[in-house]
């Protein structure tokens, strides 16, 4: 069974500083990895995905994520955080077979302090 772990419930970072939100996964076969962001009382918005190819994936709003197969990690990063980045971030995994469904991590709340 596939699973996702986000070891930090909360990440605090000062505006302008780099941010990292951690994610590790477990899936049989090659993983498809995703990051979604959720603002209060809103749906989940897609940020980026890793399917294959370059380990560094660039996504929306200046976010990027690095796939590390040996560490089974897919950490989300941004070089310079904005206060407006404050939200709930979910890592998700899906297997490569048809019919497998997204499994979300528990979420990490990012607070960017002015």
């Amino acid at each position, binding site marked *: 069974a596939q699973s996702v772990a986000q070891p930090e419930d909360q990440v605090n970072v000062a505006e302008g500083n780099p941010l990292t939100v951690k994610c590790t996964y477990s899936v049989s076969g090659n993983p498809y990895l995703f990051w*979604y962001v959720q603002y209060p009382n*809103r*749906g989940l918005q897609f940020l980026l*995905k890793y*399917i294959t190819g370059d380990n560094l994936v660039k996504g929306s709003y200046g976010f990027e994520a690095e796939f590390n197969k040996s560490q089974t990690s897919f950490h989300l990063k941004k070089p310079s955080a904005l206060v407006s980045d404050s939200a709930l971030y979910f890592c998700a995994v899906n*297997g490569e077979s048809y*019919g497998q469904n997204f499994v979300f*991590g*528990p979420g990490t709340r990012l607070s960017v302090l002015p």
Partner: protein
Amino acid sequence: AAGVIQSPRHLIKEKRETATLKCYPIPRHDTVYWYQQGPGQDPQFLISFYEKMQSDKGSIPDRFSAQQFSDYHSELNMSSLELGDSALYFCASSPRSSGANVLTFGAGSRLTVL
């Protein structure tokens, strides 16, 4: 661009009542997913449909049922509502799920059971 439309956005019901949530996927998306997100929780997969047939089943209670219609919209029917059913219910759609496809989420329907 058209998004996933969910209705109603908010719904208040009493215990033991029934509720129906509707989801209209993005045009030409033939796969629909339902997720339940409790307060402070990550989204939990309930059920999915591909081409009007159930394709996967997650942690959906027996009191709940869902279907996808010929126009690809989907309805989630919930009966004998319990206090614990209070949650955000998200619908998502994608083209045929290969694992690599991004799920596009609706804004959610917030169900409150009193």
